[in-house]
């Protein structure tokens, strides 16, 4: 059953809520009353329920099957976390309630901060970034503030990042007023240390490196990289998107990192929710800690309080030179509760085991798929396995076709065409949530697809998906003539 837009099936008179009748007479709106129609149709409650349930059934989700999206880390989302986040003491708490009324909330933020600092081996953490990219911004802002404090902000404008970096890295650097240059990769898919060194100088603000990197590989030279950058007077920003491969095993603080954001929705399983909300607390080294954003929580004699302005920060800690404020309130509290619930449930042993299982699962997939597919690099991987499209050579099947064919097998495609350093990349991250049974089924389906591609069945790949709610969608047309909203004219058309 096709489900129309609410704008097509609702009416302006209908409503799905019952409210008391206004008494009338009140009008202190300064003469700015709304007189026109707004254009918002309503639906009764049963119609609304059915509308959204029907829409939901057009989605794929981790609760339905594997989501082997490399670099995206789609793992199990425990419902305990949802329950905890909805406790009235958290879910129904006003961000500007007096400190005396929010002691438990501040305690929770402080407790989560402790876990994050302990797991990363870093001395400080900024909790307010609202998502991973916001955390990157936070880290790069701290670097900029540190450079300013050193009087070198005007001089140090260059930031280096590998070509394989997430797009957010260069975008963030630019948003901070830096320019970005690529660091070349070596043959093993890792940063070319010598080439990096050649780019360093006294105009370097810092580097942005993901580790494990987006090829699913650990940067072997990580300490040498950190040392070289530090020696050149720059800072080391680590993109923490792949922290889930090493959490509980390795502390980034032991590797020379100055700042790293943590995607709570990846590593600590707060749900992706179709694209958000995320949460990106950012751990900071001693060097960067003084520049952390406001607000933050402090605790004295068991009483928690908030430092909410730069001036207050300065008054509180003498070296504090907070770079300012990232968001209106305290960050993604709802995500904090979920992440802490997840962490406490795992404990240090479980976090470690989860990382180990994630790496084991990726290597198992790598080992099994090798039979028909072409790994991009030699050797083992960390939490994700990267393939290129060599195995599809001359088959007429491209990476995107392979991906869409997976849909017809009941799977969400892997990440495709990323990282950019590999031709027709296919990046597979099973996560620790997949059982051996699920992985065996998945690998079986992948191997069978690869064989079919090689057997000359390109046509069926080009036609895929066939069994999805929609066949392939025309993204070019969407971008060429953007239709970003429904308009009443469409309703009239539909009625014709």
């Amino acid at each position: 059953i096709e489900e129309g837009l609410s704008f097509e099936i609702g009416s302006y008179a209908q409503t799905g809520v019952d409210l008391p009748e206004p008494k009338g007479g009140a009008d202190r709106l300064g003469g700015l009353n709304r007189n026109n129609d707004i254009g918002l149709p309503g639906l009764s409650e049963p119609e609304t329920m059915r509308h959204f349930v029907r829409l939901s059934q057009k989605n794929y989700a981790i609760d339905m099957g594997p989501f082997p999206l490399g670099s995206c880390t789609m793992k199990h989302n425990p419902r305990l976390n949802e329950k905890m986040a909805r406790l009235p003491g958290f879910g129904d708490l006003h961000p500007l309630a007096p400190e005396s009324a929010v002691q438990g909330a501040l305690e929770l933020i402080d407790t989560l901060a402790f876990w994050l600092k302990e797991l990363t081996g870093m001395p400080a953490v900024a909790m307010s970034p609202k998502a991973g990219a916001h955390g990157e911004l936070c880290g790069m802002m701290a670097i900029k503030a540190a450079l300013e404090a050193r009087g070198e902000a005007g001089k140090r404008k260059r930031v280096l990042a590998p070509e394989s970096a997430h797009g957010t890295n260069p975008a963030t650097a630019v948003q901070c007023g830096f320019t970005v240059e690529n660091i070349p990769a070596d043959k093993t898919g890792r940063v070319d240390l010598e080439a990096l060194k050649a780019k360093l100088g006294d105009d370097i603000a810092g580097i942005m490196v993901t580790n494990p990197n987006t090829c699913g590989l650990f940067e072997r030279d990580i300490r040498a990289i950190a040392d070289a950058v530090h020696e050149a007077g720059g800072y080391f920003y680590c993109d923490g998107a792949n922290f889930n491969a090493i959490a509980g095993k390795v502390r980034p603080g032991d590797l020379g990192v100055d700042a790293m954001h943590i995607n709570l929705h990846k590593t600590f399983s707060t749900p992706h929710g179709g694209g958000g909300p995320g949460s990106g607390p950012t751990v900071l080294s001693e060097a960067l800690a003084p520049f952390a954003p406001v607000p933050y929580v402090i605790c004295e004699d068991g009483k928690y309080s908030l430092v909410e302005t730069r001036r207050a920060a300065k008054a509180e800690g003498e070296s504090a030179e907070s770079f300012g404020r990232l968001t209106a309130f305290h960050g993604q509290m709802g995500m904090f509760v979920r992440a802490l619930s997840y962490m406490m449930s795992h404990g240090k042993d479980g976090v470690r085991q989860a990382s180990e299982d994630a790496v084991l699962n990726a290597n198992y997939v790598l080992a099994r798929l090798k039979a028909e597919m072409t790994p991009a690099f030699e050797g083992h991987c960390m939490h994700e396995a990267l393939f290129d499209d060599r195995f599809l050579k001359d088959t007429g099947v491209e990476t995107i076709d392979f991906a869409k064919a997976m849909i017809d097998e009941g799977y969400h495609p892997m990440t495709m065409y990323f990282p950019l350093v590999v031709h027709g990349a296919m990046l597979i991250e099973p996560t620790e949530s997949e059982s051996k049974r699920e992985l065996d089924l998945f690998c079986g389906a992948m191997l069978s697809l690869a064989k079919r591609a090689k057997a000359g069945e390109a046509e069926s790949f080009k036609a895929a998906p066939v069994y999805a709610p929609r066949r392939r969608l025309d993204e070019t047309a969407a971008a060429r003539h953007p239709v970003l909203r429904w308009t009443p004219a469409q309703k009239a058309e539909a009625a014709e």
Partner: protein
Amino acid sequence: MRYLPHNDIDRQAMLKAVGVSNIDALFEDVPADALNAKFDLPDHMGEMEVERALGGMAAKNRAAGAGPCFIGAGAYKHHIPAMVDHIIQRSEFLTAYTPYQPEIAQGTLQYLFEFQTQVAALTGMEVANASMYDGSTGCAEAALMARRVTKKNKVVLSGGLHPHYGAVTRTNLELVDAKVVQAPIDVDASEDIASQIDDDTACVIVQSPDVFGNVRDLTPIAEAAHAKGALLVAVVTEAVSLGALKSPGEMGADIVVGEGQSIGNGLNFGGPYVGLFATRQKYIRNMPGRLCGETHDAEGKRGFVLTLSTREQHIRRDKATSNICTNSGLCTLAFTIHMTLLGEAGLRKLAMLNHEAACKTADALAKVKGVEVVNTSYFNEFTLRLSKDASEVVDKLASEGVLAGVPGARLWPHDSEAHNLLIVAATECVTDEDIKTFSTKLGEALS
């Protein structure tokens, strides 16, 4: 560990298939002395233990619904229909990824398209994006966008703008050496912000209802801005107000940013919230954030996709309009569901109930000795000038179970002029008894 499906037999079999004898062989690239670090953290806990620990923390907080609550200033306690929270927890929505594979993500994409349409209608603008992190970050993005559109450098902030929005905007704008002019605190909406606009001005940012609750007429400001080639960025922190007030679009705003928390989303101690971002069609390629667009599939059926990604970081990298990567997906869904339930008729009624609650509250408090109501106009929030420091009053009332509002010192700690101010919000959740309790206790605190 309950979340991990492998047992040791599985693990051994898999290690064997991989060709290593133990798991650490797969971590061979990690410096040996950094591997298997020790952590000063507890081992795993069962659900019951976690519930006890977190439940204990939650119990130390005073929920807005636990008694009279009059706190607003950018986050509002509203009643959310039970269905909203039920639907957003459906596996198919909660545990879906960003809809990059549109063929199996039409559920997410269609509600984003509905959301964009709702936000555009509500703000009176032509188009809206699929949301920002929250209102405050949206405000900073709007200023950055205005710089891109106008190629000018100066940003003027009204004295009625929420100070946190101002701070976020400054923090972001100073990074790229923009000039940020902050007008002084403007309690009674008497500033002449138009006079601050000059030829170098990219935009002027004005909030209505402002942080003190005053309803501001944006039309003359828009005209002044446009005369100088600047944009008007209108900020709305209480989305419900748009059910009663003339939309910023009608008054000439070029970009409208708003906090959508009031529709469908709980207070959550400040996040996650949902930033509304709307503008004119001609600016779409300068917009930040995710956009959902209509298209068709290979069989000609209507469908939806993420579009104009050439603005976005994952395609444009250092040339992107913003580094933003996620939107507030699930909060957006909550907004869309609640707005669909409300519809135009419900939203107007809800807005009127809020306005009535505020009028009633203001009238009751105005009678208290030592209280002066500052506003002549307001929607569901207004400001009192008290005969003493409002922070003390708020703390005293909190200890008696009344969340009285936001004291000036909370928002402007370094500006003692503001310290006797108390910003009071009243929504449909406020009862007559709440108002009575508040005014009685306020009287006691001020006597």
